[in-house]
């Protein structure tokens, strides 16, 4: 996978600090599965958390805390291995963290039509903002929009081009309110991406105002 577009350091720091909403954290985890470069930077951002933990002023635990915990160790002799998810076979365009939610191929999902050439699936993570899969047909463009908060996009299949550049499988677009863009699918293949926001998008222009109530992103 030839990844050209990566996360902003600030986004990876928020991920390491644990402050991203669930959907955005899921999207970051997905990209990390594909991108050694961003994984390396996350490790550095986590080391920053470790260094801060070393510097923190300790707060004493209650006097029986250690004994209470030691008594629980015997109940928990089994080490935790099963909690780690390792699906046997993954479709190459479904990273493991996403597989946990969709359990299968992108082709078998119950896509819902959103507008001309656009289908979507809401992952309903119930976190702040929205998290959804978007499937856009060749030649179709998503209406012009800006972002009041942050929007992360991970391309799973196909590609699109916008004012920022060309994005293909594995790439992420890490956008905030300063960016005003209108992606258009630039090959004869559907573009499927995972999109997570921390607040609603604002569509601009006539078409945008028309679809806003339906898309509600």
């Amino acid at each position: 996978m030839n990844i050209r577009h990566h996360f902003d350091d600030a986004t990876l720091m928020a991920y390491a600090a644990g402050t991203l909403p669930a959907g955005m954290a899921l999207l970051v985890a997905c990209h990390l599965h594909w991108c050694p470069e961003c994984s390396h930077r996350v490790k550095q951002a986590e080391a920053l958390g470790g260094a801060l933990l070393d510097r923190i002023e300790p707060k004493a635990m209650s006097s029986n805390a250690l004994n209470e915990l030691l008594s629980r160790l015997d109940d928990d002799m089994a080490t935790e291995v099963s909690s780690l998810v390792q699906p046997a076979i993954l479709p190459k365009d479904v990273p493991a963290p996403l597989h946990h939610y969709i359990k299968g191929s992108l082709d078998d999902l119950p896509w819902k039509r959103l507008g001309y050439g656009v289908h979507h699936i809401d992952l309903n993570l119930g976190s702040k903002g929205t998290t959804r899969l978007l499937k856009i047909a060749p030649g179709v463009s998503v209406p012009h929009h800006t972002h009041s908060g942050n929007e992360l996009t991970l391309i799973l299949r196909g590609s699109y081009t916008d004012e920022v550049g060309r994005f293909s499988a594995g790439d992420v677009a890490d956008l905030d309110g300063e960016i005003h863009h209108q992606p258009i699918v630039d090959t004869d293949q559907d573009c499927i991406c995972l999109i997570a926001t921390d607040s609603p998008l604002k569509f601009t222009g006539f078409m945008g105002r028309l679809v806003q109530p339906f898309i509600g992103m």
Partner: protein
Amino acid sequence: MQEDKPTGGDVNAVIQIAEEKKKQQRDSWSARLSSLAETRDKSEFAAIFEYFAPRVKSYIMRLGMPLATAEEVTQEAMLSVWRKSHLFNSAKASASTWIFTLARNQCIDRLRREKAVEYELPEEEPDPDQRDMAEHSILEERMQIAISTLPESQAQVLHLSYYEGKSHSEIAEQLGIPLGSVKSRLRLAFSKLKAHWGEEE
């Protein structure tokens, strides 16, 4: 006039000794955590608990959890140290960093009221940059120094993010600055820290 004042060299030597001691301490926590997976020695776990639990508790309290919950979540985080010690890899992270990530995940689970799925990252290709444990702790040592030399405005956003669990938008609101400024301060801080990590700014 200046003769009886300690020279800069002496002061540096004292600092160096203190830093060296701290580094050895951190090295030893990583080594002890590594051996815990094999020995399952409870007295070893107790020592790790005595050092880290009060730090984890302090971290969790700063995230805004009430005292009783903070203590409970700390216990869960320390229990996961025991359960998952076989997953600790001292070549990839120091003990402090690994325990930080466990505590952070424990807090996320608690705040979301649902268990976050944990994902095992794919095994990395052998990396020519692969740093061994000793080197890792030197890097963390440098990072410690770098953190203490950050300008106040950068240190502040770092603390609000990591210690108070504030999102970038919340930090912007609290400080009355644009979201873009919060991010650029964080980026600047990170690039300074990376420089100390031995990478280009």
